[in-house]
């Protein structure tokens, strides 16, 4: 019961974050008059479609315009464009909650759809592929090195890694990405500069996979260099603090082999605090992914952000803000569940 309650509490608080972000964005859009602009562009998109349909039936241009004008007025009423923004705020919130996100101004899917939900469907898997690859490798490296360092705390190597983690905090991920392209693409010609596949993509599943691997290497390395510093440092700090607990001393006093002590008495109890740090670091690493994707032209959500800014596309920015928050909150919730499973203290 306690478990369900804890999870329900988390779920509610995360839902409030989502709704809060949604309302904040919608209110700002309304107050600045941008929501009018968005609605009008949706309306015009629809009118264009209707015009084409009508043009096949009504040949007289005057009559066609008259009919269109009538439909336009109806649509304006239906969308609530004749009322102030706050009167139709709830409609907009509901529309976004249903993931009815409207149309992009210039950006299209491969098949040519301008519907934002279609574009996102195409992009999100790419982002998840890049992110999870980088994050998993990062967590692996952090655990391996962190454990080694914790055992050697105070040595020169340990201090060097501490310094690296401090400096890596100060390195903008996106700048590092640019540097990587300059060195490994421009000077050494080792890796492609960006994108996900070569143009045209090679034939055959295996070759395609190799091509993908070649394209994913630089962004993943960039993300790992940027993220690993603080992660190694965190692992090390948590392990050192647990290594000081009495039960570890007791285990050592019992004469258990050091390997067993490390595995069972230090690393296992470190899992929940480590997970907490993963949860807390999630937002930061997702932010890093937005910028890294942009630098490498990786066709995911991050690059979509940059394209939306460059093409001054308000609907797309709103949709991205909402969907990004949604994904973040879902990821957070999954990690929270994992946390509850890992940490018995939360359950009992």
């Amino acid at each position: 019961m306690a478990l369900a309650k804890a999870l329900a509490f988390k779920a509610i608080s995360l839902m409030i974050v989502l709704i809060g972000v949604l309302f904040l964005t919608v209110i700002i859009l309304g107050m600045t008059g941008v929501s009018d602009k968005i609605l009008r562009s949706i309306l015009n998109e629809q009118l264009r479609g209707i015009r084409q349909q009508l043009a096949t039936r009504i040949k007289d241009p005057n009559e066609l315009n008259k009919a269109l004008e009538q439909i336009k007025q109806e649509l304006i009423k239906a969308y609530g464009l004749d009322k102030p923004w706050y009167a139709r705020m709830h409609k907009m919130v509901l529309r976004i909650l249903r993931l009815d996100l409207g149309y992009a101004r210039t950006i299209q899917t491969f098949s040519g759809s301008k519907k934002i939900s279609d574009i996102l469907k195409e992009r999100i898997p790419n982002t998840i592929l890049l992110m999870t690859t980088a994050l998993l490798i990062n967590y692996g490296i952090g655990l391996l090195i962190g454990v080694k360092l914790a055992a050697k705390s105070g040595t020169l190597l340990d201090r060097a890694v501490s310094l690296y983690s401090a400096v890596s905090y100060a390195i903008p991920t996106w700048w590092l990405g640019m540097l990587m392209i300059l060195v490994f693409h421009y000077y050494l010609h080792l890796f492609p500069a960006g994108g996900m596949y070569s143009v045209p993509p090679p034939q055959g599943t295996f070759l395609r996979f190799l091509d993908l691997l070649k394209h994913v290497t630089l962004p993943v390395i960039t993300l790992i260099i940027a993220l690993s510093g603080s992660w190694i440092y965190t692992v090390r700090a948590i392990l050192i603090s647990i290594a000081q607990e009495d039960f570890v001393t007791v285990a050592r006093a019992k004469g258990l082999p050091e390997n067993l002590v490390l595995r069972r008495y230090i690393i296992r109890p470190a899992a929940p605090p480590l997970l907490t740090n993963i949860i807390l670091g999630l937002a930061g690493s997702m932010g890093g992914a937005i910028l890294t994707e942009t630098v490498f032209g990786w066709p995911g959500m991050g690059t979509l952000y940059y394209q939306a800014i460059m093409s001054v596309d308000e609907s797309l920015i709103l949709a991205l803000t909402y969907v990004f928050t949604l994904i973040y909150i879902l990821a957070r919730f999954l990690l929270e569940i994992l946390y509850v499973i890992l940490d018995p203290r939360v359950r009992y």
Partner: protein
Amino acid sequence: MGVVREAFEEFWQSGVSKAGVVLLAILTAISIYVVLTMPMDFGTRYWNNPLYWADNPKAVPPAWVNHFSKVKHTVHTILIASQPVGVSYKTGVYLKYYNMTYNYVYDDFPSFITLKISNVTFYSEPPVIQLYITRPDGFIIPLYTLSIPSQPSGLPPYRVFSKGSKRILLSGDLYVARALSNFLYEKYGVFLGTTNVMQIGHEQIVFGDMVNKTYFKPLKGKYIISIVLLTHDLRDSIGRVEFVIGGRVYGLMGTDTLGRDLAKGLLFGFPVALLIGFVTSIFTTIIGASLGIISGYVGGKIDELIQRFADIVNNVPLLPILIFLCFIFKGNLWVMIAALIAFGWPGLTIVVRSMVLQIKSAQFVEAAISLGASKWRIMARHIFPNVAPFILAQLIFFTPSAILSEAALSFLGLGDPRIPTWGQILEYGFRNQAIFLGYWWWILPPGILIIISAVTFVFIALGLEPVVNPRLRRWR
């Protein structure tokens, strides 16, 4: 005061603290220099005004690369003359000579050549201005002739080119091409039409020796550039002539594709970065700390309210919201700073609250309560001093994150166009394919400066950590 001194000695012990303080001193000194010497409207008046940079070579590396390369690249040079060196008289016409000498010692050719004439004064008929270049091999090329168009109305003396100077881009000019075609025939007996001359490039012919019809090698030596004013009136004069030899390298930091002197933009970034860092961190800390103290000390419903709110704001993914806000309130640095503050405070509030909860039960607080001290007095005089060192450390720690956030948003094209920053320089470089064209001087310095400024505060914060959090002292 003993406590402060002890704390300072503790802080000063570590190498990172010293490095941080030295870096901060350097950053501050450069910022003060910039504030005193550069105009505050640098961004709008110069940086984003392409005309101001028109005479600079586009996208060339810094001049110091010559020290590291075998090929000595042409250094950007502007020759100036404002007084005639001599006057001669020939069949009713006075010739006033404005001479400039140029020692050409490079292994490649200039990127362009430009002539600029300012402040021509005349009394009767408009004069004619001619440009001759005397080469080291003794040949004289009559490169260009400029007739002052028509006589302005009013009484003499008449002035032209006094508001903005007359700028003649000699490279690519058809008139110059004809002159060069004649010169080639005269010297080598080779006939090349203007199209061929254009293809070779005017600079190569003026500053080169022909090897074959398409290949010229630099002709090193002394060149004399003469501007001759042909006039009927001895009082007529040119205020200033400039001969711009476009470099293949430029200044301390090179230029971007608009010809902007990157050194200037990078310099201006110093005070801006510090301003963004400090303003954001100071306000974030004030809000975060005071809410934390109130939440912890007052307790009850207010505590609950503040903590719930902090928890919600703390869980918002920052970058998407920042992008959204900066996008809607286009390119405004103050909106960016306000957003950073609005979403930056909760972490501090949550931690300060837990610290205050511990302090609250201390005896000196109870003593103060029993003496009848008011809530506000206790919070200000008894609680705050005890959390102050931690808050100070947080203040330092917020600074780099603000600098990095601004850089990131600028990189996404959301920077304030009125105020150039390092992030914006990088964004412009990225948009103009600098990384794919190998313009390293455009990409490396701004990034390194962002890192240095952020590292400065990270180092100081690291040095402060053992002072603020004595438990860490156990770790060596």
